[in-house]
């Protein structure tokens, strides 16, 4: 039986998620793996927006910021449960994406890039400046999700690391599943079509503006949930989460891994999350190495790491 690429991606991912913990020598590895999954979740959103629909956003961290601060603020000001705050943040991000997306998605290429960059900067500026509410640049504390103690009361006691590993792994799996479903559906095809030619997409009946907006909203929700998870995991949050560097990081992970595919995006997220950890022994050479690796990958594997490596291997075989 042939398995579809979609199933192959999901299976590989779940197998890795299941097996990896058995090789983890310490809680630190659980933390790193959770970070990989959280970043990958945001990157999957970027894959939908940039990989499928071809729209570049340099402000997606803004949505991560909204998601993250929703988890910090909603329990305090609205009395929401942290878990409900994640949903609340996702909704807020979705609405925000809808409001912002409509005007800026009319822009193309770099103009869209700069407009989205502006949006991201606005969000991080509000988070930085409204000290009374957000705690300013030093950030604020985030309530405990509470799920872990709830579980342990019911006999399932996990360490903090294991707990977050499970949560993030499950959410990434769900996120990847949704994105893969989308890829080969009418909506996904519409997104990829408008990437190719907006004029032609229009004449086959695709509402280009609303399709772009859909992709923007979906990817905003991904970023938002990822931001929420970071906030809950760290039990604190600072405006860095909405910063320009974080936006760039998301796009880089997606492109480096191979932006047109979910598998590539996850791979890219893994590499760029692990790399700085692996490079700590290089001390001051860390930045140099990171920059160098980014350049080399893009030069020699221009479709990104995963597709690039795959075709290299195939080339050997053939």
């Amino acid at each position: 039986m042939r398995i579809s690429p979609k199933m192959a991606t999901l299976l590989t991912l779940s197998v890795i998620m299941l097996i990896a913990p058995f090789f983890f020598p310490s809680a630190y590895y659980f933390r790193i793996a959770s970070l990989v999954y959280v970043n990958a979740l945001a990157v999957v959103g970027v894959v939908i927006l940039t990989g499928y629909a071809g729209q570049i956003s340099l402000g997606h961290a803004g949505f991560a910021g909204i998601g993250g601060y929703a988890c910090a603020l909603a329990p305090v000001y609205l009395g929401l449960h942290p878990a409900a705050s994640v949903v609340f943040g996702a909704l807020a991000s979705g609405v925000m994406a809808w409001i912002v997306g409509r005007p800026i998605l009319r822009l193309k290429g770099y103009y869209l890039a700069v407009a989205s960059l502006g949006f991201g900067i606005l969000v991080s500026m509000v988070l930085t400046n409204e000290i009374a509410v957000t705690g300013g640049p030093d950030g604020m504390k985030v309530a405990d999700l509470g799920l872990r103690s709830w579980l342990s009361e019911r006999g399932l006691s996990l360490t903090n690391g294991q707990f977050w590993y499970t949560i993030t792994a499950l959410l990434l799996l769900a996120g990847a599943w949704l994105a893969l479903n989308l890829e080969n559906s009418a909506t996904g095809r519409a997104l990829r079509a408008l990437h190719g030619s907006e004029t032609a997409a229009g004449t086959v009946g695709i509402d280009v503006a609303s399709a772009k907006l859909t992709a923007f909203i979906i990817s905003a929700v991904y970023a938002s949930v990822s931001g929420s998870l970071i906030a809950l995991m760290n039990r604190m949050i600072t405006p860095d989460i909405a910063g320009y560097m974080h936006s760039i990081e998301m796009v880089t992970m997606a492109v480096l891994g191979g932006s047109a595919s979910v598998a590539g995006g996850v791979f890219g997220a893994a590499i760029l999350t692990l790399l700085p950890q692996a490079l700590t022994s290089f001390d001051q050479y860390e930045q140099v190495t990171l920059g160098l690796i980014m350049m080399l990958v893009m030069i020699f594997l221009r479709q990104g790491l995963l597709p690039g490596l795959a075709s290299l291997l195939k080339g050997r075989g053939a």
Partner: protein
Amino acid sequence: MTLLTVEGLGIQFGGVKAVNDVGFSLNPGEIVSIIGPNGAGKTTLFNMISGVYTPGAGKVTLAGEDVTGMAPFLLARRGLSRTFQNLQIFQSMSVLENVMSGFHLRERGSVLADLFAWPTARRRARAAEGDARKLLERVGLERAAEREAGSLSYGSLKRLEIARALALDPRLLLLDEPAAGCNAVETEEIDHLIEEIAKAGTAILLVEHDMKMVMRISKHIVVLDHGEKIAEGEPAVVSRDPRVIEAYLGAQAKDKAMGEEAGHAEH
């Protein structure tokens, strides 16, 4: 009942009237051709009818509804479909997916259904794929189905565009130079394809410089020059019009077209 009526349509680019006060109409199942010298305004006329450009003047009526200046995707929902003179292919998608995207209107459901891969969404996708393959067969591209569209030769891309346009199952099909880049034999295949489509009830508006094809299959011809309609009528009448010969056909070509027409009559 007339399917498409165009009245007094016009547009300017930087003060130059690219199309000026053009009108004609079209019935279901009919093939009407627009001919005229390069730059006469044929493609521009297509662009206005299909909503790519907003007309500066005039009115377009589709099946009784005023659709002037309506966005292309809304026109597509009303049964209008087209191909492009400058190819608009979804380069990085496979040939099959290009055609499947033509089924968008039939296949689309809610975004949620697509995200969660509900059975209805999957069923629609399967149906679209099956039908897309049939269409590819019709234009002779079935063997290229899985290839990346960007890797096809020019002539094959032209046919891919026709297949995609057909996927909409249009009431009105606009073809902009479908035979360009095809040799005589390939042109004839396309020729037959168009006639078949028309027989099934689709109205066809055709722009083409291959006079042999135009004269053979069109019921009615509209001739443009410098954005204005200079003649219109049945092929035999138009091809004898001295203004048309001077502006477009050229004396030599006229003889040939006539000769070939006679040749076909012999068959």
